[in-house]
């Protein structure tokens, strides 16, 4: 099954993308398809939820979407154009909140510096934005002066969300961004994502194995299994009438 192209203009399109990893010593490399003929698109202002079991290729998909990894075959278009040669041209337009809360922040930078970094990259003035962003994600102003090791896991992830949102990007990838958070913060963050999305209209690729969280934020949902997208559907449709047998099993566990 391939992804449908919604009527709205797409910010991100993956077109028949395959990613093959080779590993191991020369002459005896192991080939492994982390993504197999994946086609997906994220419309402007839309949140696409990506669910699937561990190792199904979700993170690989996000890396391809962020232009961090060149697909073995297939095409990726951001805002209608292939990825530019120099990442710099996209600076501030896409951001990510990544999986590992422990390593998501530079331990040598104060929280404030980390949050301000995407602005600094763009050469934009920082002003009160950092304090404001920290407030948005539920952290006191005083946290700006802290180092990551002085934070709890949940606090850390909130900081990286603040960092991702600070440039008001067009497109954000959340890779298991809320999995490590406690429920009340999850809701805060999910609400925040929704609010900011309503306010600034960014698009998002929301990766999680938590179907509850995905349902809460996603407009559409794609299900991955061993490198392939097995189903793509509107959230409402998906949760009421999943088409694929694997999706049905997933929903049962919820």
């Amino acid at each position, binding site marked *: 099954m391939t992804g449908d192209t919604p009527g709205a203009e797409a910010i991100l399109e993956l077109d028949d993308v395959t990613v093959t990893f080779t590993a191991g010593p020369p002459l005896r490399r192991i080939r492994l398809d982390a993504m197999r003929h994946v086609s997906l698109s994220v419309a402007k202002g839309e949140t696409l939820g990506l669910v699937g079991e561990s190792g199904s290729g979700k993170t690989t998909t996000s890396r391809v979407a962020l232009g961090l990894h060149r697909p073995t075959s297939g095409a990726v278009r951001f805002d209608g154009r292939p990825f530019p040669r120099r990442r*710099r041209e996209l*600076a501030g337009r896409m951001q*990510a909140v*990544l999986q590992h809360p422990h*390593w*998501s922040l530079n331990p040598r930078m104060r929280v404030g510096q980390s949050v301000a970094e995407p602005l600094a990259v763009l050469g934009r003035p920082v002003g009160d934005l950092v304090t404001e962003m920290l407030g948005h994600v539920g952290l006191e102003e005083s946290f700006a002066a802290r180092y990551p090791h002085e934070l709890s896991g949940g606090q850390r992830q909130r900081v*990286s969300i603040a960092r991702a949102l600070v440039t008001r990007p067009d497109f954000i990838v959340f890779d298991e961004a809320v999995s490590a958070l406690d429920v009340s913060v999850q809701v805060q963050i999910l609400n925040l994502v929704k609010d900011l999305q309503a306010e600034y209209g960014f698009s998002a690729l929301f990766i999680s194995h938590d179907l509850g969280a995905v349902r809460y934020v996603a407009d559409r949902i794609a299900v991955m299994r061993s490198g392939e997208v097995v189903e793509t559907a509107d959230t409402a449709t998906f949760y009421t009438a999943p088409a694929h047998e694997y999706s049905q099993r997933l929903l049962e566990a919820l």
Partner: protein
Amino acid sequence: MKRLDRLSLGGLACLLVLVVFALGSLAGAGGDPDAIVGPRLRPPGPGWWLGTDNLGRSMLPRVMEGVGTTLLLSSIAVLVTAAVSATFGIIAGYRGGYLNELVMRLVEVLYSFPAIVLAILVAAVLGPGQVAALASIVLATIPLMTRLVRAAAVAVSQRDYVTSAVISGARLPRVLGRHVLPNVAGTIAVQGTYALSVGIAVEGGLSFLGFGVQPPQASLGVLIQRGGTYMIAAPWLILGPGVVLVVAILAINVVGDGLRDQLEPRETRSLT
């Protein structure tokens, strides 16, 4: 900012005293280190507070000059090493691929030379003197530091904050300078102190084998080497510079440890 612990502060104080000592020598305090001022091999006394050497020179200005020479030489060498190793180690570690392979192969070649043989060859090729000593220390300390910096850089490069910075559009210098470098800085600092002691040892070893700094200039290595042959007849010749050398290396190491603990705050856990 956390403060250094008390032991490290003590070490820092020792180093400061030594630096003042060395600067004093530059300012002429203690007298001319090369002048023959009295009878040969006299024990400490007025006019020569640390005794006289086998040429009747006062040991006090010589030790002062020696501290300066040795500290300056090894510090410059270690700074060069740190700069070179950090550059190559970080780029190789971050970029990987053929560049990494090339750097690592070169490093391994250097690594395979016993340090002192390398130093002797360098001294022989360049002709003995400060430049040769410097180059020897640099070549002797580069391999290990580059290796460790690279290993640390590989680990750091895979961290999410580096990826996040790349996604934010940060250019290579920023990614390497703000994210990779500070996170391998602990490794560099610790290795730097280690290299500093190796540097002082290499300088001493070179002098010991006759390739060190040129007479009449004093370095701790030269003084200890000469002093060693007068261990019984004139123990003050080795005592002064020896104590200073040990104190210097010890202080450097203690400060390095403290620095590492500060740069890499680690939680400790008791087993009970």
